[in-house]
């Protein structure tokens, strides 16, 4: 059952990325290019996502178990450490280089984009490097 709902969540998430324009790296880079001709659209993607997601998480916060009667598994870490800072900065550099973050890259791969395949393979390799260094 968890697999079925995970599939639906992934599907809806992917459709949201397509509708919002985030699946298109050129549009993402247009947002990240503050000094050029700036496209503010992605700020509204975040606003829309947080407005709806904020309600979902407000409900989830009060629950001990999910609607499938399994335990809630929300993160408990609270410390802002060197790993969080360094990792996030490195991620931002990679995001700015190609305009891809993980979700949109997977959606673009599903759309049959060869360049997305190259990015995703390199990203998985990067995640493997993290596992080896950990």
């Amino acid at each position, binding site marked *: 059952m968890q697999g079925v709902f995970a599939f639906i969540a*992934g599907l809806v998430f992917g459709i949201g990325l397509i509708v919002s324009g985030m699946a298109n790296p050129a549009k993402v880079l247009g947002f990240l290019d503050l000094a050029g001709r700036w496209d503010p659209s992605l700020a509204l993607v975040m606003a829309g996502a947080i407005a709806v997601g904020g309600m979902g998480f407000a409900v989830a916060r009060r629950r001990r178990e999910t609607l499938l009667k399994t335990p809630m598994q929300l993160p408990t870490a609270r410390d802002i450490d060197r790993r969080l800072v360094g*990792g996030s900065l490195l991620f931002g550099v990679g995001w700015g280089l190609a305009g891809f973050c993980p979700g949109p890259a*997977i959606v673009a791969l599903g759309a049959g984009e060869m360049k997305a395949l190259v990015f995703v393979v390199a990203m998985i390799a990067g995640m493997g490097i993290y596992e080896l260094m950990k």
Partner: protein
Amino acid sequence: MDIDWTAFTPWSALAGGAIIGLATTLFVLFNGRIAGISGILGGLLRPVRTDIPWRVAFLVGMLVAPLAYLAFATLPAIVIDAGYPVLVAAGLAVGVGTRYGGGCTSGHGVCGLSRLSPRSVMATLLFMAAGFATVFVTRHLLEA
């Protein structure tokens, strides 16, 4: 600041964002987890047997999203200007960075800000700043 009004798509951005928020809501209420793509994918590299099915199911859902979308409308253009060497470097940086930082645009940016996590607020500010800085360097310093 020079805003590109022809590229600005406020309604599809808000609607798409709301759909993403719906997905994170479904996932937390039914699966009890953060819909963070880097964590869902990266978790498969050190697999826990009972976690594999839902991780794979989520990713397959994302992969088939373009096909589902195509059933109702033509897919919007996906324009990838970066060349292959840049894509490899970017992919490596995103892979290592998101795992060290514990999340990406979805886990920290959308879910983390939705639940007002201080860690995620910090992570989001940092990766946005790094993204802005990187595009400034590649578009305005290196290409100038």
